[in-house]
């Protein structure tokens, strides 16, 4: 009994399910009520669960996250929507100094079961601040967990798992995928655990690591490489903090080569950490340095050239070639 859904639909269904399962789950954010969010991820929820559980917030991100902290301390499980990646920064202080540290500060007495949903990444032709990839900053912050979904089915399950987690989870949603591809959801299936990575295409010559929006690019790159006789293994990281290194290390030990691909700036992006860890753990297996493909170390450009800025099929393939030719 499966349904064909988009990522937006999967997230919407996941939220709905979580709200049905636990009356303590609240949804908060700008325009999440009647409008259903600018991406319609919360569509219909206020109508069905009421204004007390689906809360339109004043236009202030620090206020949204800060009040969510209070609600969490009171026993609620707030799911906060940040309207766009570039607008999470006014809430940055609350996230890194309060959300991330409350459990630690209280020696585990106060839990912080909060999900901060962030539509992230580019490719939608938007104006400035609407296409950012802030994940590395959150992953660098102990006390937060950070995950990124890449497809409708994961969206459905991972969001529920994040909400069920007693730790704060920054939940990254690749906005260009919201309404892009459909997939079959079997609601009776048992999902994999939240903080695990997944081999989404097996291969033997090189390991390609991606998450969120770049998983699709990585899959296409692997297909293209296959036509040239190169067998690329693709891993959808899914979890960015903690990292699930086992499948990554297993893979690289087999392939000897790794390329990491993300939209965030390369400098100090997730690729840096993955490169460092892979090199530490697989030093003698590596036939080439871990290569990184990502957004350039410039601010996000005007949208007419965003596809030049973002890692695309060609740039990933170029890195694959450079690694294989190393």
């Amino acid at each position, binding site marked *: 009994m499966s349904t064909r859904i988009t990522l937006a639909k999967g997230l919407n269904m996941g939220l709905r399910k979580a709200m049905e399962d636990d009356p303590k789950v609240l949804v908060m954010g700008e*325009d999440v009520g*009647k409008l259903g969010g600018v991406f319609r991820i919360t569509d219909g929820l206020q109508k069905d669960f009421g204004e007390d559980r689906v809360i339109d917030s004043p*236009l*202030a991100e*620090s206020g949204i996250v800060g009040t969510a902290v209070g609600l969490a301390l009171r026993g609620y499980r707030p799911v906060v929507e940040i309207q766009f990646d570039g607008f999470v920064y006014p809430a940055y202080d609350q996230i890194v100094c309060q959300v991330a540290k409350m459990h630690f500060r209280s020696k585990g007495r106060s839990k912080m079961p909060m999900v901060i949903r962030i539509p992230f990444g580019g490719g939608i*032709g*938007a104006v*400035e601040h609407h296409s950012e990839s802030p994940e590395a900053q959150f992953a660098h912050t102990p006390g937060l967990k950070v995950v990124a979904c890449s497809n409708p089915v994961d969206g459905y399950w991972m969001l529920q798992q994040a909400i069920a987690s007693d730790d704060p989870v920054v939940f990254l949603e690749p906005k260009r995928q919201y309404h892009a591809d459909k997939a079959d959801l079997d609601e009776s299936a048992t999902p994999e655990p939240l903080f695990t990575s997944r081999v989404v295409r097996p291969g033997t010559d090189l390991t390609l690591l991606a998450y969120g929006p770049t998983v699709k690019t990585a899959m296409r790159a692997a297909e293209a490489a296959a036509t040239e006789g190169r067998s690329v293994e693709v891993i959808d990281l899914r979890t960015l903090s903690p990292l699930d290194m086992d499948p990554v290390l297993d893979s690289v030990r087999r392939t000897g080569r790794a390329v990491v691909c993300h939209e965030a700036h390369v400098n100090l992006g997730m690729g840096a950490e993955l490169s460092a860890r892979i090199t530490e753990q697989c030093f003698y297996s590596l036939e080439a340095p871990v290569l990184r493909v990502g957004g350039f170390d410039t601010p996000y450009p005007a949208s007419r050239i965003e596809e030049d800025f973002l890692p695309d099929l060609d740039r990933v393939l170029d890195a694959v070639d450079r690694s294989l030719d190393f």
Partner: protein
Amino acid sequence: MSQSDQFPGPDPTSGEGAGFGPDLAEVFGPSQSDGGPELVQLLTPEGERVHHPEFDLDFSEEQLRGFYRDMVLTRRIDVEATALQRHGELGIWAQLLGQEAAQIGAGRALRRQDHVFPTYREHGVAWCRGIDPLRLLGLFRGVDHGDWDPAEYGFGLYTIVIGAQTLHATGYAMGMQRDGVVGTGDAERDAAVIAHFGDGASSQGDVNEAFIFAASYNAPVVFFCQNNQWAISEPIERQSRIPLYQRALGFGFPGVRVDGNDVLATYAVTQAALQRARDGQGPTFVEAYTYRMGAHTTTDDPTRYRLSADVESWKLKDPIARLEAYLKRNGLADAAYFEELDDEAARLGATLREGCKALPEPRILDTFEHVYAEQTAELAEQRAGYAAYLESFETEGSHA
């Protein structure tokens, strides 16, 4: 009555005169929908000239026709840009429909030496500053993040992060104080800053911090809030349960609510507030009470959250119609005038349509040059690497 007395400020010396615990139903009562008795108005929705004890001004015929022309052309820019978005030439457009009077009234109150910090919707103010409307399209077309020199026009780049510019405005005003261009009494020299923001923005920490800094340093800045009743889908009541202009009172500077659909009143109040700032009397909060007649942006669907009846009732307060009625009724503009203006608007529209498509495309390699004033070796290297990569396609052809 001196200039500064025009603005209601807090009564600092006692609780006297302050009311007691507000009855919210009352607060949200009729005053919220018609602007309430505190609304400063000089021209009614019917186009009748009314007078105000503190903010009255004499306007010349030329000035009145000028306001009218500004508003008509501003609306034309807006209509054309909206159409260009529908035709796929712009990625998105933030309409100002209905807010023409607020923007022209504020924009025309400025002097050359003043400085504006806009949001993303200040097309009318940009017009008053002499910025070619074509330049406004770049951001929305996605060819740049803004393409005018803020210093040249005294008009900052559009700011998208809600409220951030109010602090920049306050800092800039502090700079004017240090430059000795405030309160010298020299009209050519004394300057002020105007910070634009929306009703929704009034909830941001930054905006409230701007109030604090401006009050603390008595900075020459006018906080000009276009209360268009909506922050995307959220009504003003979510942000404030009392009239917004009263926010200022709690920070120790005056606030006033003006009919933002009345270009005369908006002009009068804004110029008084700017003069107050230039004279060294510090910040003022101006709430321009108006309505967002269109969608939040071209990607928004307001039918999901507001009643068309509300929109209809605001149509009766159209800022252009009321000045047109006044001009006609008083014989201040004849048919030829209106015809000529129509032609001018049509020409402007054509220029925008053609010019938009001709806006130069950005080049990714250029973006590397704009990150720093002093380029870094590592970024130059990244650029060179990418240039070489791009060249390799020209020789070898693409993978894809």
